[in-house]
């Protein structure tokens, strides 16, 4: 027993010491990041080196961090929220928990990828694509539009991730552009064809690489990550041509919380994420599309023709999220 007591004492002391240091008055900038340390960590270190601002980061799942911010309300410790999905950000904007961003920061990004009220701005674009196994499918045999995946030829062969935020953002865009009826029948068609479902983009690309399934709807950059670690993987992206909703671009977004509205460091970080240096980093490291004007994507990815991109407003993705989730669930796709 005494041995356990001797074990416990230092632990309790550690916990106490850590608690006290955690509460000590700090000038540091607190970021809630829905994008992982592998992606964001090196960039925030550069920000610290260039500005001298200390940054504390809480990494986590975008949706969970959005729920945390909603629960914390106005007195959240977070100054900046970096989100993987405009849906989750829009959810927070609905609670009036986000501050307005500087106009000169907002103007760097095409208006389709920022909030009309200036509550958030897009940082990088992730394109929806069809990933396919080159050993099982010829490129010429792939569906021409995302709306064709329920045609007899493809029914039941294209995997989706109904619980994934990007898939849900896509469905919201589909509802917005084509209407709820088209979205509903598209989802019902998938369910009736018994389309394979997976937990997320990762699981789909992994299953395609194994040959378990032929095709799946995912975000473009996962396959590049796979190929970096396994150059032999027989997986390629297929971009639906023209103004097809299947090649929708979904942005990662950054916002300043309402409580940090006057925090110059928070604004500085937002500006830094849109600087050429950061945009170049994202383009080269994550193969995402830089959204700040004047920065070109890496040559590894097909050029993005924003001019013919589908006519939707990323701004509206947030508002419809819960309705979208209901629609997916009701379709029988099994969210």
């Amino acid at each position, binding site marked *: 027993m005494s041995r356990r007591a001797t074990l416990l004492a230092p632990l309790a002391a550690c916990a106490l010491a850590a*608690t006290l240091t955690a509460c000590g008055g700090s000038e540091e900038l607190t970021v809630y990041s829905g*994008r992982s340390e592998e992606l964001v960590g090196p960039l925030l270190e550069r920000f610290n080196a260039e500005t001298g601002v200390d940054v504390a980061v809480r990494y986590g799942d975008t*949706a969970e961090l959005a729920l945390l911010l909603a629960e914390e309300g106005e007195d959240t410790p977070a100054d900046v929220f970096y989100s993987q999905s405009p849906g989750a950000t829009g959810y927070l904007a609905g609670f009036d928990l986000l501050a307005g961003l500087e106009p000169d920061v907002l103007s760097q990004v095409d208006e389709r990828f920022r909030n009309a009220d200036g509550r958030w701005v897009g940082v990088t674009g992730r394109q929806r694509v069809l990933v396919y196994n080159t050993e099982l499918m010829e490129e010429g045999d792939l569906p021409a539009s995302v709306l064709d995946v329920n045609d007899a030829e493809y029914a039941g062969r294209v995997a989706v991730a109904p619980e994934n935020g990007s898939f849900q953002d896509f469905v919201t865009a589909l509802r917005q552009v084509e209407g709820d009826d088209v979205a509903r029948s598209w989802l019902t068609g998938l369910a009736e064809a018994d389309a394979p479902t997976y937990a997320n983009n990762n699981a789909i690309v992994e299953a395609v690489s194994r040959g378990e399934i032929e095709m799946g709807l995912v975000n473009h950059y996962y396959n590049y990550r796979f190929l970096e670690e396994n150059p032999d993987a027989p997986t390629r992206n297929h971009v639906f041509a023209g103004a097809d909703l299947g090649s929708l671009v979904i942005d990662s977004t950054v916002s300043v919380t309402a409580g940090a509205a006057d925090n110059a460091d928070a604004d500085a970080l937002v500006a830094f994420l849109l600087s050429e240096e950061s945009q170049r980093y994202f383009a080269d490291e994550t193969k995402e599309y830089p959204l700040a004007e004047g920065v070109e994507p890496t040559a590894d990815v097909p050029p993005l023709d924003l001019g013919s991109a589908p006519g939707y407003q990323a701004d509206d993705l947030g508002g419809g999220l819960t309705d979208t989730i209901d629609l997916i669930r009701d379709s029988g796709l099994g969210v």
Partner: protein
Amino acid sequence: MVSASDLLAPSRNRARRGRGGPRRAPGLAVAVLAIAACFAAPFAYLVVRTLGLGAPAIEALGNTGTLAPLARSVALGLAVAVAAAVLGVACGWLVARTDLPGARSWALLFALPLVIPSYIGAFTLQAAFATGGLVQTVLAPVAAVSLPRVGGFPAAFVVLTLLTYPYVFLPVVARLRQAPASLEESARLLGRGPWATFATVVLPQVRGAVLAGALLVFLYTISDFGAVHLLRYDSLTRVIYASRFDRPAWLVLSLQLGLLAVAVVAGERAATSRDRMAGGRVAPGGGALRLRLRARKVAALAFAAAVVVFALLAPLSVLAYWAARGIAAGGSGFGGVGELVEPLRNTALVGLAAAAAAALAVLPVAYHSVRHRGRLADAANALVVGGFALPGLTLALALVTLVRAAPALYQSLGVLVFAYVVHFGAQTLRTAQVGVAAMPPRVDDAARLLGASPLRRLTAVELPLLAPSVLAGAGLVLLSTMKELPATYLLAPTGFDTLATRAWGAMEQAYWAQASVFALALVAVSAVLTWVFVLRRSDALA
């Protein structure tokens, strides 16, 4: 029904009226009340918020639309609990009651699958055994194996059984090490075969431990999200997850799961008397009878190896393969061993702190709930065990709201450890209850007659007898805490990374090698801590 504990009660009451007055009862009851209040916090939050939503929310509690997913959760929970019980008892018996070569190493290997987060366990087992997976690829030159697509109930059942049977294994080993071998010897001497001895002597002795473990498996399974999410089984936790942006629905569904857990726990308690919980008394010093396996040694080793291959080696092999492949290709994102230091230290720190705190915090509840049957004991028991069935995200958000009022505590390590204790306290409670129930009252009576003070009796007599059960429970909390995700993400001090959070974060962005290195480090540090703080000590105590 008159149980043995009822028959014993008068003599205990007589003893209590003897010298020293009522035995510890008032102080103990106050302590239990305070502890129960802590465990009640997340439930209180859910109930208050649901009531605040008004009549529609309360009606929605009985909404038949959610009954089908709830039924699927229960079906999976029951199936996994039964299978994990069988597997856990078999492994425990092999380790504690036979001359299986390398029993101590097997004991560690059998315990470790518990530390694999179910999401990573499911992903790696899928990558190993599904179409085009590692197994098929490795076997391809030898034989063309065609493997089915992995998913749904069968896959979730297999994966969760493999990851949760240690909930049964650890308490069973702790129990077997303390149970008197004399009965088994007598049975064998009287001509009973090993199977008959197992069925008539060993099983009744471990019944309490098996029930305790199986209940934990059931609760883990109905509250698990990682495995059912990845393996596409439409359980209630997936509906809860899908509704997380719809606050009223989310609250109601979470409460529904919590109420199910409390009902199951209450039912289990009503059905289990004190002696059935224990399954016989401990007999300190009784040397374990070890069955000579002889010719069956090969079969026993093959069985043990099969369990370890499927539950531990397969996931670890996939992780090692991913790590090696990514690092070789140079695109892994792995920043060197130095990156492991801080998450590793944090993981060990919170794991040990939560294990120690949980073991100490629930001990009064274990005493009280075994020795006194009353509303307080029943409520405390249900609340402590029920905390395990709340989804981690629900529990974390409830604590966020409750602790917001105290900014000095918010996002402190203290609150994080508190969350782990509330979430996982059930794991030490059930094992500690088995230990308390198995303690012969006459040992305590003898100490009292010899004039030992209550404190002295506790430290000199009772705690040493309880130690193996409490350690087994603390080991379960240790392993569960080290892999915990939602509470760690939301409640830890900002910037506090653990191996599990780093592994999950890397995996989410498809940094497979990086994720694998963190996950492998997690298993390695768990192995060391389980060995040093749980198995080695429990060997010494047995």
